[in-house]
Structures are given as C-alpha cells and as structure tokens.
C-alpha cells in the first residue's frame, strides 16, 4: 500500500475522551457519520486505533503504527485482516485516499 488517507469528504468525526466518561483510560472510541444525514457509527478499540492510524501517515507504515498504538509487535497483527478492515472503511467512504 502507498499514499495515505483522510476522512471522507462528507464525514464528521468526534473523538471521545474516555476520561470524560468516568471510565478511566478506557478503550478509545471514535464516532463517525456521513453528513448531513447520518447515521452515527461508533468505532471502538482496535477499530478506532486503525481509523486514527490511517489518518496519521503513509499507508506503507500502517501496520507498524497500529501495532505501536496497540502495544504489540507488528508481526502479531494479521496483515490480511488489517487490509480488509481498511478496504471496508474505504468502501463505506469513511476514509478516502489522499492525493499523492
């Protein structure tokens, strides 16, 4: 994979601060929605980590960024599952490829 991603053109994003929910350092939660009609979808745990990692750098480094964020070795991540999830987010237009 090459290039990087950004949120879909009509996608609104809200990052929930778990500390504000009284749940301590709970798993990350991100709410996303196509605007202006919705609905709101929630990405929790690894899904939220992958969504964020997609927006933070080159596609070629995605697996390493996700592993770093989850605190596991990159080799422990199933690259096929990761690619499948990213493809699904692209198909649902939550993320889109940024022009190179």
């Amino acid at each position: 994979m090459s290039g990087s991603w950004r949120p879909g053109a009509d996608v609104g994003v809200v990052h929930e601060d778990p500390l504000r929910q009284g749940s301590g350092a709970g798993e990350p939660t991100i709410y996303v929605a196509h605007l202006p009609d919705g609905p709101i979808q929630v990405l929790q745990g690894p899904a939220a980590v992958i969504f964020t990692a997609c927006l933070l750098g080159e596609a070629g480094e995605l697996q390493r960024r996700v592993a770093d964020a989850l605190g596991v070795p990159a080799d422990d991540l199933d690259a096929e599952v990761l690619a499948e999830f990213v493809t699904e987010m692209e198909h649902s237009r939550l993320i889109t490829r940024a022009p190179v």
Partner: protein
Amino acid sequence: MSSTVVEVPPPVRILFGHAALQVVADAAGVDLLHIKGPATEPELRSPGGGTDADVLVRPSQCVRFVDELSARGWSARSTFLSGSDVGHAATFWHPQWGYADVHRFFQGISPKEAAFDILWAHREMTELAGVAVAVPTSAARHLIAVLNALRNRRTEEAARMAAALQDPQGRVTTQHVEALVAALGAEVGWAAAQGRLEEHRGAADYWPWRATIYGTSRMESWVARLLSAPRLRDKALVLLRAPLVNIDHLAHVLGRRPTVRDVVVEFFERPRRGLAEEWQRHRTRTDT
C-alpha cells in the same frame, strides 16, 4: 466492519448536530454562526450541559435555511412565532442529531441584518465534529453568554460573568464587550445584567427584559410584547395573536398532537388562566 449504530452520548450528538447544520448551510449558501454549547468556551456554557445545537442564521437567509432543513430531514418542533415571546428562535429535531435551536436573532441583540453583519464580519473559525464552522468573536461570545443567562433568569450568573470582564488583564474585558454592545443594540440587556435595567425605562427593549427577568404572569408577558412593538401595525399584530393558541406548546404539554377540541378548549382556557394569575397576584399583594 466492527462498527455499530449506537445511542451516543448527548454531547457527541450535539457536536454532530452543529456539523450537520453547517453542511446544510454550506449547500444552501447560507451564513451561519454557531453559538453556545461546544461553540463557546467551557466557562460560558450553560450549567448542566446543553441539550441542543444552537445556531444564529443571517436573518435575510432564514427562510431559505429553514426550507433546506425541512428537505434534509429536520422537523419543526416550534416555529419562530410560537417558540418564544420575542420570536427569536425555532426548534427543530432530526432523528440522528436530536434538537437544534435556529435563532434568527438573539434576544437582547438587534434583530436587524446590520447586527448580523457585524458579528459575521469579525467571525472566527473553528471545527466541530471535524467540520469548519464560524463562531462570533470571543467578546461576542461573552456578550451572548451574559444575555443568555439573563433570559433564562440566571441573573446572578449573568452579573458574575459581566463582573468578571472588569479584570483589565483578562483576555476579554468590559471594554471589548462594550464596544460591541452599542453596535449590536444590546444596551438594555447588558445594563440589565449589571442590575441597571431601570436606567433604560423608556427603551423599546425595556419591557421585554423586565418581563423576562421579573415577569411572573402571561398577562405581563403580553403587555411587554405590546409595549415593545415598534409600530402601530406591530402592536395590532400582537393584539391579534394574543388569543391564539400556541399549538406547539400545547402539543408539548399534552404529549401528542392536539385535536380540534383540545385547541378550542385551550382557546377559552388561556384568558381564564391569565385573569386567574392576575387575581392571584393581586391577592398576594394585598395580603402582604
């Protein structure tokens, strides 16, 4: 994909509400300022957190915006005429985003286009739910917070916020806000927040503010509307509307859409309640 459709926390829903309203406004070419709640500083927000997304729309584009909202799944829960005594806002509801208050002016600030022009000309940009939105300047946000506390009868809070601006080292000072007050026609509300309402007894805004802050009866509220109506024609409209039943309010009270019979009953009931309130007030005064 491991995402699900869930009930989201109200603050998150409100953020999306602001963003959705902005997307509708952008598509319609409408100027929109986001006010209160997440569009302002935490210390200026209403206690207990908001329940809706508040926006101020350019008055001349209000009809267009409301039409667009209806086309995008928002339904009116109150109209500008029925929403409040001064007709400043209407409430809309969307199945995904919840409630939104659309203001065509803010109570205490001139309803004229020129006032919006001033707020718009000095707007600042921020992001809500990742969408770029315009907000009034920091001084205007403070003024709106003070007026909002006042119109909700949180007079001590309004006075405290106004007093806090007297710190000359503050990021926003009384000087900053007072420079706006005159330009926006907000003198009466600003004075009222500082306990100086009586200094503006002859002003058109005096009676609405008096009724808002101290008024206890619907009769007093209607008298305030009558006295503040600028022209004879406006006064006549107030008088004509006085006996009309507020269908939106009645629906809210009943918890369902009122029937014709409900409206007829309410039509005769309202004047009776108004007179009863006045009688009760008269008795309270004579008893003490």
